[in-house]
């Protein structure tokens, strides 16, 4: 099975501190990591390869520094990495990004399945996966909580949806976006890291992909950011301390009165 895994490099929100005044993220000096939700897709891809054979190629669109994310995925067990990088791509929205990715997939050749995380933790749109499937005209199975690839090229997925699990089946090639419960990502091994260091990445720019210049970057993106603002998330609510039994009773009564005031207790 030949599997492509689409990943993104994002700021490491785990190491980010909160500004105590505004409750917003302090982003200075934040390290970049593989989007945590993409690690599940990488893990699933490696497991499928271990079971069915084949090759796992990880790919990303980003600045040259995104090479680090690809190397990390290779250290986990992917076989090859493709960096799609060009100044002309910067400012692309999900429409333009998925267009570029679809052109890259076209150049990368035959594949059986594309895997990706449900969304990236920075942009948080979850749109690039379904958009990419639309460009490539392959079936999309989103929010996969489990995945089974059969010898007859059928793929069965249990989609984690609001009401429970929807079990669906399709044929390869297809695109699957995965959620956290699908697998626990492995850590890179020493051997993996060594292999990653030795592996030469394939790099594609706009010219390599036959890109329509009107479809990329800020100019080619249908959506435009009109304004950015920082919401104040601290609410300066009431704080009560309950350090002994009597305090606890008083605090609970006060909380119930508060909930009543906001009409939050059903009658």
């Amino acid at each position, binding site marked *: 099975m030949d599997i492509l895994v689409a990943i993104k490099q994002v700021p490491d929100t785990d190491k980010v501190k909160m500004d105590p005044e505004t409750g917003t993220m302090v982003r200075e000096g934040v390290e970049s990591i593989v989007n945590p939700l993409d690690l599940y897709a990488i893990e699933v891809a490696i497991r499928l390869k271990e079971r069915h054979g084949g090759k796992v190629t990880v790919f990303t669109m980003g600045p040259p520094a995104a090479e680090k994310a690809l190397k990390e995925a290779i250290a986990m067990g992917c076989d090859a990495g493709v960096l799609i990088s060009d100044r002309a791509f910067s400012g692309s929205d999900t429409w333009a990004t998925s267009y570029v990715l679809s052109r890259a997939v076209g150049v990368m050749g035959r594949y059986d399945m594309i895997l990706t995380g449900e969304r990236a933790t920075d942009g948080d749109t979850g749109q690039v996966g379904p958009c990419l499937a639309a460009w490539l005209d392959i079936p999309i199975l989103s929010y996969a909580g489990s995945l089974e690839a059969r010898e007859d090229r059928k793929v069965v997925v249990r989609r984690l949806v609001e009401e429970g699990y*929807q079990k669906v089946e399709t044929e390869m090639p297809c695109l699957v976006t995965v959620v956290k419960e699908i697998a626990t990502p492995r850590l890179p091994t020493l051997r993996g890291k060594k292999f990653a260091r030795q592996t030469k990445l394939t790099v594609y720019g706009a010219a390599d992909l036959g890109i329509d210049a009107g479809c990329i970057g800020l100019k080619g993106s249908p*959506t435009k950011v009109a304004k950015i*603002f920082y919401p104040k998330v601290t609410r300066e609510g009431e704080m009560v301390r309950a350090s002994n039994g009597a305090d606890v009773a008083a605090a609970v009564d006060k*909380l119930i009165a508060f909930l009543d005031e906001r009409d*939050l207790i059903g009658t």
Partner: protein
Amino acid sequence: MSVLKPEVWTIAEMSGGALKGVSFELLARGRALADKLGVELVSVVLAPSVTDRVLRELIERGADAVLCVEHPALADFVCETYSRVIAGLAVERAPQIVLAAATTSGRTLMPHVAISLHTGLTADCTELDIEEGTGNLLQTRPAIGGNIMATIKTPENRPQMATVRPKSSRPLERDPYREGRIERVVFSPSAVETRVRVLDMERDVVGFENLEEAHIVVAGGRGLKKAENFQLVRELADALGGTVGASREAVDRGWISYPHQVGLSGKTISPRLYLCAGISGAIQHLAGIKTAETIVSINSDPEASIHKVADFAIVGDLFEILPRLTAKLRQRAAQSAYTEQEGGRP
């Protein structure tokens, strides 16, 4: 109201033959936009079959018209089928705005449709408005874990598309006298051919919680110390009529399953009440709850970040507070049931 002006559309969602609440939330959003633009608001429904009686509620809650496509193949959500039908309708009728809920279906369907229609899409909006002068849709959404808000426009392409965060708006009151029309669209069978088969829908999964649609969520984290103690959270949730959520730490420790996880790598929710105990409030967790209407925190650490975003914070021991709160709420419920019973006597 001119019928020639491009319409505002909302995509209704159905589950088990009934319209889901998000369908009405979208109409409240759409109504405000359509009124500002002076155009019609149309609710689009895809279903295996649905009666006028069910569809009427969409009109009573704000739609001027309902556009209904019926086909057995539309019984379950399959992205490519739904996408083809909606894109087909949009090409034919050229709406200026299309809104869907930011649910698992909406967030899969809308990106797919946006590619077909070559237009922009903004995910998970919490505010929508019309720009003075241009009439463009202003789509405001949280990004980077809710730490920034971005207002986004789609100035050149049409329709302007957005998914809207569930529970971020309230449905309009039902008006039984409101008038509107129901249009049933006949679709060519080839439009619903699909490569994806739905094998099963598991609805009654043990311990599964529908967090996204809950009005009240009671959540627990590392401070609960062990899996068994989640019982305290469950009991309080039960007393409040809420559902159970959890922090990433609690899920990663195997105390509770992933569908309960709230936060950046779990679910983003906007309940009326979010009450949490033993959760410190890491950035990732706060990202999932920032649009909750009311936040109540119970944590023994006075410096915990969660207290800073709470509307009501108790610094104290959750093992004392939760049981007492649950008992008090139960006592009240029992009393009010008793009073009602008494009052109901002749």
